[in-house]
């Protein structure tokens, strides 16, 4: 097994794909972080005006203690993890497309061994992408936020945890889908469209129709966003004083976790999706005729 893990690791380091995708990843993360800080600052300025005094009296905290930039952090992580998703999606579909899969299977004890080795190596890459995303989002936010808006060290640790977990899970989900749809362009377009556009459109439709949004929390994007979003809402609320129930719904929407369950439940739901995608891709790859 160690041999195959090393082989898969070498596959990923001997082409430029890992840094080719890492560049847009960190740019999105950094840009998102910078923007999060700026928007958070604008919000605080707005709510600090005289009109908001009533509100802050009601809540028991002054608006400059509100950590608005947290919402942007969650959004930035959600967007940036689309790149590890693509990286994972190319793991199997790329090999089938370039027909290197033939040599890969000829040099492995079984296809199961190959898939397992890929899973381990791509989990590592998912973690590396996750750490890079967190690092650059944090850098952006720190540059543009006032220090009162930043989470404390426990908050940072929690954010890092969910960012890395969500990045790893997205990579795994990508591997599965790439094995199910072994067409590199097709699977990349489909996944990007789904995670960036399609599910958000569904969410919007549900909102307009007035149907409960909870269903979204069980969909792939809704659940993986719930992982980061719910943590951010918790962190915000822990420093925001008394927040009325109706406001929480809005906060969850801001965090991109509208309709989502708690962070760990969201994580488990997305893990379920990953298991379905990876299991399906695994089963298909195991029996597929390579001609």
């Amino acid at each position, binding site marked *: 097994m160690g041999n*195959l893990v090393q*082989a898969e690791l*070498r596959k990923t380091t*001997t082409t430029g794909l890992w840094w080719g995708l890492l560049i847009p990843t960190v740019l999105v993360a950094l840009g998102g972080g910078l923007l999060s800080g700026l928007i958070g600052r604008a919000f605080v300025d707005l709510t600090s005006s005289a009109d908001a005094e009533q509100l802050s009296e009601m809540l028991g905290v002054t608006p400059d203690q509100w950590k608005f930039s947290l919402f942007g952090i969650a959004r930035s992580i959600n967007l940036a993890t689309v790149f590890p998703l693509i990286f994972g999606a190319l793991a199997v579909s790329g090999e089938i497309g370039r027909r290197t899969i033939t040599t890969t*299977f000829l*040099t492995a004890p079984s296809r199961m061994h190959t898939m397992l080795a890929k899973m381990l190596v791509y989990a590592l890459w998912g973690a590396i992408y996750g750490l890079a995303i967190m690092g650059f989002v944090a850098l952006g936010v720190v540059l543009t936020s006032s220090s009162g808006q930043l989470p404390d060290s426990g908050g940072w640790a929690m954010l890092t945890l969910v960012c890395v977990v969500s990045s790893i899970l997205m990579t795994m989900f990508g591997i599965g889908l790439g094995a199910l749809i072994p067409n590199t362009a097709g699977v990349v377009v489909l996944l990007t469209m789904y995670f960036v556009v399609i599910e958000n459109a569904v969410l919007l439709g549900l909102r307009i129709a007035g149907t409960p949004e909870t269903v979204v929390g069980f969909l792939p994007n809704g659940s993986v966003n719930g992982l980061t979003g719910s943590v951010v809402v918790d962190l915000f609320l822990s420093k925001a004083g008394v927040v009325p129930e109706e406001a929480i719904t809005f906060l969850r929407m801001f965090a991109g976790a509208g309709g989502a369950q708690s962070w760990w439940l969201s994580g488990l739901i997305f893990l379920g999706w990953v298991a379905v995608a990876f299991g399906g891709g695994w089963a298909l790859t195991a029996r597929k*005729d*390579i*001609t």
Partner: protein
Amino acid sequence: MHDGSGLIAVQNLTKQFGSVTAVQNLSFTVSPGSVTGFLGPNGAGKTTTLRMLLGLVTPTSGTATINGRQFHQLGQPGRVVGAVLEAQGFHPRRTARNHLRVYAAAIGVPDTQADQVLSLVGLATAADRAVGGFSLGMKQRLAVATALLGDPQVLVLDEPANGLDPEGIAWLRTFLQSYARMGRTVLISSHLLAEVEQTVDQVVIISRGQTMYYGPLEHLRQQQQRRVLVQPSDVGALATALREGGVLTIEQLVDGRLAVSGVDSKHVADVALRAGVSVYGIQEEQVDLERIFFQLTSGQYAGQAPAPYQQQGGWA
């Protein structure tokens, strides 16, 4: 794990792709110590058979084994069998050396083996170039290098001559023969007998997914008959004289010549002299193996002859 015999055994192998029967009840064995040619026209089922042997395609029925085991039971397959297959790909941006190092790691051989096989196939100077810039022949050499990484006991090559330059073909020929002489097993497919005629000792000839001939190439050669083509002054007289001498396989060709089988030209000329028939031309015809191959395998996708050109109110 496996018996180390170097034996390839294909038994009643059948593969159905939907409604297409690619391979039908195919059986043959390949022994170590010689190069075996796996021959058949395009679409005969060679690639499908080899891919079933290598565990890449699941047979509809029947078995294919190497060293008495199916591919997925070999344990470390890369150390038992090396394969060069059609449509075996490379990542265009990976260098030749890195490509080999990836698979050296998978097989579990040291990285130095990558450089060794590169020099063996004559690609040492191109080691650090991206494979995307390689010619077809260079890619084929790299595929051979990949197959040799695990120093396997069995080598399987699917149409390896495709894309190779004459020098490459000559090299491959010598290499495969010496590889077999070391007591290893070499199975090489081709749609042209002539291409492998000088390389192989044994042949398996298939057509439409079925075995047509399987045995030493030498036996096939012996089956072929020589014919003497002779243009006599009197066809009837020569034919009669030959028949009286016990030669019964005589054919008259459309151009008026006689085709006589089973004897040499000297015999025909002597008979003609005794019968008082002049010989205007005499020639020994070598029915080449390719023709036997063609006869064994013809029929599949037989191309139609172009329709004769017909002119309206022709004056031909």
